[in-house]
């Protein structure tokens, strides 16, 4: 929730510097959708460079970042369920033809 008690927007939440986006996350983008229970949801895509290898420190950093995003949504006042999704750049570019 913002200081004035007005729910924040998805953009506001994702732009918040206190989320400490790891450097190896190239881009964060989102798409609004419905989840499997029919609730308003947002898929937050964490896009990594193609060459990124997810080693233990990267994995921990990604999970930590994901948790901070989810917590931020929980506190935001937005009635929307956040889901974190992951892709490398080339996968994200082609995701609509992967299905």
């Amino acid at each position, binding site marked *: 929730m913002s200081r004035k008690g007005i729910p924040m927007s998805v953009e506001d939440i994702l732009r918040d510097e206190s989320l400490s986006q790891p450097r190896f996350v190239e881009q964060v983008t989102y798409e609004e959708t419905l*989840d*499997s*229970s029919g609730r308003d949801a947002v898929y937050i895509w964490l896009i*990594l460079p193609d060459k990124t290898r*997810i080693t233990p420190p990267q*994995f921990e950093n*990604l*999970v930590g970042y994901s*948790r901070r995003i*989810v917590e931020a949504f*929980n506190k935001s006042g937005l009635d929307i369920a956040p*889901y*974190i*999704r*992951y*892709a*490398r750049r080339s*996968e*994200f570019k082609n*995701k*609509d*033809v*992967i*299905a």
Partner: protein
Amino acid sequence: MKPETYPEMLLEHAALLIARRRPSAADLRRSCSASYYALFHFFIGEAAKLFPASGRSYIRRCFHHGEMSKTARVFSSNQQIVIDTLKGPGQQPTHLTHVAHRQNKQVAVAPKLKDVARSFVEAQELRENADYDLAHAITKTEADMAHRRVIQTIEDWKAVRKTRAAKLFLIACMGMKRQGS
């Protein structure tokens, strides 16, 4: 090391599908599904251990994806669980009332248990997409992350499994519909 339990076998299966040279969309979808089912069966196994061996076969059949998801959503977004909030719509929380009488009405949820619950919700959502929604692509990266997350979640669970909130989580995951009907 050869997997011994069913969840371990499912995790190995999920890993093999991702590790294929050029995994197909079907491989990635089945991998996400196997990772989720590893967690699903892991929790059922944990819950069954709370009961005498003679009743475990029945207990294992009391779990439903939807009820587990509802419970996990409550645990993932609250630091305190009020036991009454876990009842099904219009129903008395019969089995939970039991717990409530023995314990406080409110149970604190450790941050790690919140993470565990959240991981379950996310694994299930991904599995729903993977199994049923061909409009949503599944990337190799997220199949890999889902697999790693489930392994991590099982490790995290081991750190909190003895807490009251964790036991309540398992009991609440059991089919509340059946309890009330």
